């Protein structure tokens, strides 16, 4: 019973961090109908920037702030450099998709250049900022509590932005009919850039939280987690903010339970087992609706 509870708490904390990455996939898909596979690398880049600025002794929180801004700017660069030119040429969607995969490899490989960070793993400052909380046999690390609280707060802020602000309204309008949004005077490119920036910033925060929990970073850290978060976004219903949260939690809890009861080898595949099951049972995800294609 106690191990079960422990695994669930583990899973919830990790799941919220996944959700933070998953919203990046979801929001970008909302405005562009594109799976942005460079997102996982932006997450890794975020963690590396925290690591780098901490090593410059600017302090952990300033380092995280700088990393957030830089990751947002990296995501913005990807849009301006690679995606916008393709959109202008009205190239086929698959070309854009492959471009994002290419961008992901470029970022990953730049990080692993010897003179930059190198391909080996680095230690990351722990986010266990206060003493763990012990309830009976269950120990909850402070990094897990921080992960949970920060992610919940950020997701609430994001929900507010999407539901209550003008730019959020524009994001939803673009999602439903980008032509009409253009027609009423929305600068669609600006909204897309904004969405990428927010997604990149969230990924950096998730990078800091998850790296602070495991205490380790590597250039490829974004590939598995990026795919898991993508799975989470699809499981919840891509394009839906709350879908990404529920998807993240389901994936997080499922993999912690699997690691607890089936062995740690089963941990990583869980996200994809759930993904496949969902695609068979309800292809639109928990909250997804069937898309209406307008002519």
């Amino acid at each position, binding site marked *: 019973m106690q191990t079960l509870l422990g695994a669930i708490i583990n899973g919830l904390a990790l799941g919220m961090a996944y959700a933070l990455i998953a919203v990046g996939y979801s929001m970008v898909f909302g405005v562009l109908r594109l799976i942005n596979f460079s997102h996982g690398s932006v997450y890794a880049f975020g963690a590396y920037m925290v690591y780098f600025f901490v090593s410059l002794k600017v302090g952990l929180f300033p380092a995280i702030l700088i990393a957030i801004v830089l990751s947002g700017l990296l995501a913005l660069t990807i849009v301006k450099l690679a995606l916008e030119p393709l959109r202008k040429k009205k190239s086929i969607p698959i070309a854009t998709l492959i471009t994002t995969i290419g961008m992901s490899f470029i970022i990953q490989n730049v990080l692993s250049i010897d003179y930059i960070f190198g391909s080996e793993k680095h230690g990351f400052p722990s986010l266990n900022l206060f003493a763990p909380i012990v309830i009976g046999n269950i120990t909850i690390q402070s990094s897990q509590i921080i992960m949970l609280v920060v992610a919940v707060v950020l997701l609430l802020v994001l929900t507010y932005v999407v539901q209550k602000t003008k730019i959020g*309204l524009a994001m939803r309008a673009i999602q439903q009919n980008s032509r009409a949004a*253009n*027609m009423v005077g929305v600068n669609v490119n600006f909204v897309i850039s904004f969405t990428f920036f927010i997604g990149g910033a969230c990924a950096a925060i998730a990078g800091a939280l998850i790296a602070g929990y495991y205490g380790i970073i590597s250039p490829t850290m974004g590939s598995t987690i990026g795919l898991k978060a993508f799975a989470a976004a699809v499981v919840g219903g891509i394009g839906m903010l709350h879908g990404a949260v529920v998807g993240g939690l389901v994936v997080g809890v499922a993999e912690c339970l699997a690691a607890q009861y089936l062995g740690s080898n089963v941990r990583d595949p869980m996200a994809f087992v759930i993904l496949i099951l969902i695609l068979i049972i309800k292809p639109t995800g928990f909250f997804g609706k069937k898309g209406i294609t307008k002519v």
Partner: protein
Amino acid sequence: MLKIENLVVSYGPINALKGISLEVAQGEIVTLIGSNGAGKSTTLSAVTGLARAQSGSIRFLGEDITNAPPHRIISRGISISPEGREVFPALTVHENLRMGAYTRKDKEGIQSAYDRVYGLFPRLKERMEQVAGTLSGGEQQMLAIGRALMCEPKLLLLDEPSMGLAPNLVTMIFGLIESINRQGTTILLIEQNANMALSIANRAYVLETGRIAFSGDARTLLQDDRVRSAYLGTRGAESRKG
């Protein structure tokens, strides 16, 4: 007010507009009629910046707006109620209208625009919190026009406002178009229902495969044999093109 000169627009190898010129003066209702594929919607798309002009110019209130981005054109005072309505289906009626005022920043102005639109279309006020996808066709048409009015345009472009509506609704929508015009908004109207369009318009242009075939006073064109046979379906077996 609006002056289009020798406008050419192509989609790939196809010339949709082969050099048209037209003018809309302040306070007028001008209608563009013509069969499917004549280039009516393309003309409006070019005016709103959604279709690229290969050559020619579009001037609005003396300023060149050819190929300007749509959000700039709307801020200058041109808005459109597009063909097929294109409302945002999962946004509420109120949010749809808010989108219409997207380029505005003046709170009081936006509030008075809501009041004006809800005054014109009481039905929309009743359905304020309903999502647009659940509205009837007529209500969606009202919403599309209302959304276009939210930025208080100087020139309102209407693309097929009567399409797919029951006859009594068509009469009602045309009545509203006239009253919007009387309130001071200049209107450029595209209609398949040429009879209706000519009866409320001051002037009309007849488009045929990307060219202006002829133009003139709407009342005169309503009596013109060429127009009557081709677009009003008043001669023998010749039916109006759908």
